[in-house]
């Protein structure tokens, strides 16, 4: 079956612009996660969705970052007023409920803020 898909695969934007990143989880996976991978910080958790609600948003670095999930499926991560330090690979993962050990990752969106 299809894995986790993310779009766009690459995004170049100017500082101060808003960007939207999309994640399509594996069909039937009710849990969805966003992570960020950068050279200096490694792979860091951002936010976790169970269905359409987000019980853990502890990793969002600032109020410029927000995420939503609709229909228990597709999720969008929005970064407002982008800064150069937002440049990173944004990864989405999904899993079945109560199985955090088996998170399956998408290919990521490479974001470059100029």
């Amino acid at each position, binding site marked *: 079956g299809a894995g*986790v898909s993310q779009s766009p695969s690459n995004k170049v934007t100017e500082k101060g612009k808003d960007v939207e990143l999309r994640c399509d989880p594996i069909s039937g996976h009710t*849990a969805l*996660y966003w*992570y960020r991978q950068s050279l200096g910080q*490694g*792979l*860091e*958790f951002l936010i*976790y969705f*169970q269905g359409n609600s987000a*019980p*853990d948003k*502890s*990793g969002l670095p600032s109020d410029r970052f927000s995420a939503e999930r609709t229909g228990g499926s597709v999720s969008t991560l929005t970064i407002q007023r982008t800064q150069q330090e937002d440049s990173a690979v944004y*990864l989405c993962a999904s*899993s079945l409920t*109560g*199985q*955090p*050990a*088996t*998170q*399956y*990752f*998408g*290919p*990521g969106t490479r974001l470059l803020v100029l």
Partner: protein
Amino acid sequence: QKEVEQDPGPLSVPEGAIVSLNCTYSNSAFQYFMWYRQYSRKGPELLMYTYSSGNKEDGRFTAQVDKSSKYISLFIRDSQPSDSATYLCAMSASRIQGAQKLVFGQGTRLTINP
């Protein structure tokens, strides 16, 4: 101090060698221990996961967890050039809602030389 420590390498070994990759951690609440493989410009791929202490074997790969020492290992037997990638350890506290996030090590870059 990071919750999960992993030697970033790089590690370079000849084809056919046994490879040992390791992580240490400080959070005694971690119950699930995962190993991911990440090829360049791709998303992490789940290799194996272990619950609590013990060993788990899957083909050429063996994962070991020693909770008393807060130390986990991944062994690769008969290493192949196709095993060349970055290997990430990851850990999760429990299945309780809100503790689903994975905490990653920095990743070890491994090269298998033909």
